[in-house]
């Protein structure tokens, strides 16, 4: 029986594979019982490591491979053919085209409504398009030949003139105290 005081240290030293140092070394030199226990522990750990190497690197039995392959075939996802892939791409493209068409129709409706509103009120109306176009467009009714048939013209430069006029106003107000 090893001495109780050195039992833990003996196991650790035997398991680590390094030579005992210091107090333990001195005790092992003096105590035959602990020395025998240490050697037995070293032998046990060496056998465990060898057995683990065998267990971990054991060859796979030939009968296991067909079963593993069968299981993998069962669990693998079904492969998609080229036709399925093309159909998927075509569907995605169709959805995109539909989205653009809806957006374009919506934009046209908005402009149409504002143009009609400007024609009714006879007052220039500022149209602010959806975020894609940040420049407001001014629509005002214009009479060409007949007063009963007002036609509409879009003055895209109106905003530029308006901005210049505002700048002049600001400059004038800044000069005056």
């Amino acid at each position, binding site marked *: 029986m090893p001495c109780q005081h050195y039992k833990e240290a003996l*196991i650790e030293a035997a*398991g680590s594979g390094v030579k005992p140092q210091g107090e333990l070394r001195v005790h092992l030199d003096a105590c035959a019982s602990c020395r025998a226990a240490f050697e*037995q*522990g070293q*032998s*046990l*750990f060496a*056998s*465990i*490591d060898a*057995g*683990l*190497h*065998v*267990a*971990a*690197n054991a060859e796979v039995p030939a009968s296991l491979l067909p079963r593993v392959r069968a299981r993998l075939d069962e669990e693998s996802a079904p492969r998609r053919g080229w036709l399925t892939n093309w159909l998927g791409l075509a569907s995605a493209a169709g959805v995109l085209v539909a989205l653009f068409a809806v957006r374009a129709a919506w934009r046209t409706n908005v402009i149409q409504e504002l143009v009609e509103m400007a024609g009714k009120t006879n007052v220039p109306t500022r149209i602010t398009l959806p975020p894609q176009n940040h420049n407001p467009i001014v629509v005002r009714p214009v009479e060409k030949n007949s007063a009963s048939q007002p036609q509409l013209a879009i003055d895209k430069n109106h905003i530029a003139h308006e901005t210049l006029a505002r700048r002049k106003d600001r400059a004038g107000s800044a000069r005056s105290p």
Partner: protein
Amino acid sequence: MENAEDIAASNEFQAHLDKALGELPEKLRLVLLLAAMEGHTIDEIASMLGISTGTVKSRIFYARRQLAEKLRCHANIIKKR
């Protein structure tokens, strides 16, 4: 060259080892078997399992220690190996 008695003793110890290995907690057993496999370093095991190298080392330590405690009573077989 091993004689029949050595082979029998070896097989007997291996059977005890396999049984003790099966009784280990899954975390310890996995790390120990990966470490026993050729070509797997501590760093590789750590990255495979997503744990630190310190954890790998401590699991190997505790796993080997538990196996030694379970197999101590079979130490007489080792002498025959």
